[in-house]
């Protein structure tokens, strides 16, 4: 009964691993059976600790870290691929821009091209006021004036917006502009050609097409061949 009193304290002392306290120590010194129980408990906890140590400190397999590194590579690869795609896309955009800029005619060449128009205009000709074809009396002069105005607008469009807004701007592809400049050159050389091109073509009166009324002759209905014989034959059969 006395030993039962010390049982819990004995187990707790063994569990904590600490030396027994005063009263318990005195009892253990007197009681051989409690000393034996205390020894058992200490052995049990030592065995538990040994088992726990073995369970908790397993040797790490050599294959684990290489496997993890390989998986990390797999995880990281799509990100790098995405960056590469972005780099490729940016490079493509830059290349497209470079090609576009190279394909455009040079600005100086454009200006030179625009200058060609006014040079060919005879000095005696009055300056053009309007581009409207319908109002012009001397068409050749007016046509020659178009590139002059355009060249001004081209120059002025970058420098003064007010000047640009006073003259209507039309975006013309470079090849068309070149063709137009050539046409103006030709027209300046041959004013008669311009006059002939812009001369009013006499309009034809668009009368309604006269349609002669249909003349249908009287239709003569003739009996089909063999009809008479069939009817007579059928009548004969009836009878």
């Amino acid at each position, binding site marked *: 009964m006395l030993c039962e009193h010390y049982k819990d304290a004995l187990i707790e002392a063994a*569990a904590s691993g600490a030396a027994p306290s005063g009263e318990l120590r005195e009892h253990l010194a007197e009681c051989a059976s409690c000393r034996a129980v205390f020894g058992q408990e200490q052995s049990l906890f030592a*065995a538990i600790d*040994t*088992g726990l140590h073995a369970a*908790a400190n397993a040797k790490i397999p050599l294959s684990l870290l290489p*496997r993890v590194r390989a998986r990390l590579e797999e995880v990281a690869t799509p990100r790098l691929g995405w960056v590469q795609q*972005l780099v490729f896309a*940016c490079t493509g955009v830059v290349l497209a821009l470079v090609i576009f800029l190279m394909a455009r005619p040079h600005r100086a060449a454009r200006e030179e091209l625009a200058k060609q128009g006014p040079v060919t205009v005879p000095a005696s000709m009055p300056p053009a006021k309007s581009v409207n074809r319908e109002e012009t009396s001397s068409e050749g002069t007016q046509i020659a004036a178009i590139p002059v105005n355009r060249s001004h607008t081209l120059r002025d469009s970058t420098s003064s917006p007010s000047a640009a807004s006073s003259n209507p701007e039309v975006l013309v592809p470079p090849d068309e502009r070149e063709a137009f400049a050539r046409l103006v050159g030709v027209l300046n050389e041959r004013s008669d050609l311009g006059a002939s091109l812009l001369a009013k073509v006499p309009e034809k009166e668009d009368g309604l097409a006269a349609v002669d009324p249909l003349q249908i002759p009287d239709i003569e209905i003739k009996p089909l061949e063999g009809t008479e014989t069939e009817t007579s034959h059928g009548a004969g059969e009836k009878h």
Partner: protein
Amino acid sequence: MQELVLNQPVSTARSELVREAAQADARREFEERLAECGQLAFRVARAVLRNTADAEDVAQEALLRAYQSFERLRDRSRFNGWLVRISFRLALDRLRSAKRRDRREALWSQPAHLPPPATVEDVAASKQFQGHLERALEELPEKLRLVLLLSAMEGHTIDEIASMVGVPLGTVKSRIFIARKKLAEKLRCYANTIRTR
């Protein structure tokens, strides 16, 4: 307008590059920790699962998950505790699914072999006692088990365990004490064999 269109991808690409650089730094740091934290993850998983191959799979999974969230972890000093919890949780999930599978298979196959009788004198060191211990460990509540396993692992002080688990130092001590007592209660019936030593 044209400038805006061109500037937007450039700034996006720059921020992407910054992000990529941060990821590269995080990865470098993670790989530096890999040897240490790989061991930790494996040991936690192994202690729960008692199977090296399964523990290796779980440790790998835990490390990958940890890596994927590593960049977002602001306080890197808490990484070990975080990894321990991931590994422990994954190992428990795997153990439960393995138990369910074993139960299913046992229903169909009805295994006939019984555990061998206790004949070894030094039972504490024997595989049999180890088996009893690990089964008893499995029956412990999770919070006690994790703390007890961490305390049994080499290289972790009680302070470190407290910071890993995120509980006060006194709580860790009391959990270890309670866990050992519970284990002793379960294993006391094998004390006779220990006494023969």
